[in-house]
């Protein structure tokens, strides 16, 4: 079998992701997982510290406020401890962590959806902007940056959950299609379709904002 190196013009589509390549799973968590499954609690603690950040980030993007996201992060990590012994190493441990976190966030979202009072509280918090992530690095752009984040967060929260989780995992977490398919346990084609539908919906919702932005850049 021969392989041909095809050079692509990187500036043609600057946001396009590298084509996924398939190679043997090398799991950086394998040793810790092995120790934990053999009963070493400190190994689980190390896994928690390694994965708490992505779990919190996913929960925050899914739920839109820090308090709920922190709560769901704890629940997801407890759930990981509860069910992690059944992890069979057929995928990376991080994929398993994302699956547990995604389920926890989606379950919480459903619970929130059923509770009108909490939903109102969530809306108030979001409109008050108190749940925005940390400030942009350049203080001069702080106001514009915060405004952009508020718009994006609001638009994300308006998406149906199945579209939101797909686009969050792809565009924010930077996960390839195949891994998202494993996390969400849906076919890869479904993942792609959800991402594209989510982006189109976000573009519609952010239209006036992004048009101003791109015109501002051009002028």
């Amino acid at each position, binding site marked *: 079998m021969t392989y041909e190196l095809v050079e692509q013009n990187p500036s043609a589509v600057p946001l*396009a992701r590298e084509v996924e390549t398939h190679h043997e799973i090398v799991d950086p968590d394998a040793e810790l997982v092995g120790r934990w499954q053999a009963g070493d609690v400190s190994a689980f603690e190390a896994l928690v510290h390694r994965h708490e950040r992505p779990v919190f980030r996913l929960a925050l993007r899914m739920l839109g406020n820090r308090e709920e996201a922190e709560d769901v992060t704890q629940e997801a*990590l407890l759930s990981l401890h509860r069910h992690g*012994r059944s992890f069979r190493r057929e995928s990376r441990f991080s994929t398993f962590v994302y699956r547990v976190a995604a389920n926890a966030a989606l379950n919480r979202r459903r619970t929130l959806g059923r509770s009108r009072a909490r939903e109102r509280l969530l809306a108030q918090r979001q409109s008050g902007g108190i749940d925005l992530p*940390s400030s942009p690095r350049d203080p001069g752009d702080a106001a514009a940056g915060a405004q952009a984040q508020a718009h994006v967060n609001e638009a994300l929260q308006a998406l149906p959950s199945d579209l939101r989780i797909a686009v969050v995992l792809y565009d924010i977490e930077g996960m390839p299609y195949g891994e998202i398919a494993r996390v969400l346990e849906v076919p890869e084609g479904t993942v792609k379709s959800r991402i594209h539908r989510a982006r189109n919906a976000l*573009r519609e919702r952010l239209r006036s904002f992004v*048009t101003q932005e791109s015109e501002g850049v051009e002028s």
Partner: protein
Amino acid sequence: MTHSEIRARLSEYLERDLPSEQRSRIGAHLESCADCDREFRDLRATVSLLRGLPEPELPAGIGGAVMARIARGEGREARVYTLFRRAAEPRFAAPLAAGLAGLFFLFQAGDSGFSPKPALDSGATKHAEALMVHAMLALADGRDASADAWRDTVSAREDHRTGLATSVTPAAAVQQYMSLARMDKAMRRTRSQEFAQKLRGAGHPNSASLATHFESRSNVVLADWRPR
């Protein structure tokens, strides 16, 4: 391709998810159509905004709080869940499935006139029952019900070596067991009572509580089973 078809595919175009022929057609269209090109640039700006969201600050102490909750016993697997997960392990699944198959054949051999399939002889039925009793008690105890262990125990208790466990695959046995749902309820109750009696007779510390469970059911549904 129409303008709306082009616009529906812009996200895929951005990700190079399209065949090269479609890509070139869309690329050529974008060069000649200002409106679609505007849509494309809006989409690209949207994706840039998403990817440009800053890393949120992690609340302090999440890991510590989780470890403290685990130390208080919150992160433990529920006992029922553990039992059912263990029931799926090959060493437990084989005797359980064989036992289920035995129950199925036992019911099939009943005297209600419902006998669409040939039943095994009484020796095979007893053997299967014994396997199931042993497997369930082993599960309740957390003991190893591996092949050697149950074969030794069963052969000591029952002198019927029929080879049932190898002649019926676990999947087929479970499938057959599921068809019990079609059977007469009264007959199922009778057979459950009989099975409960056998459990009581096993002389194990857990056998009485298991028997109580079966006595209170009109049929033996494993998913209903809970340790007392």
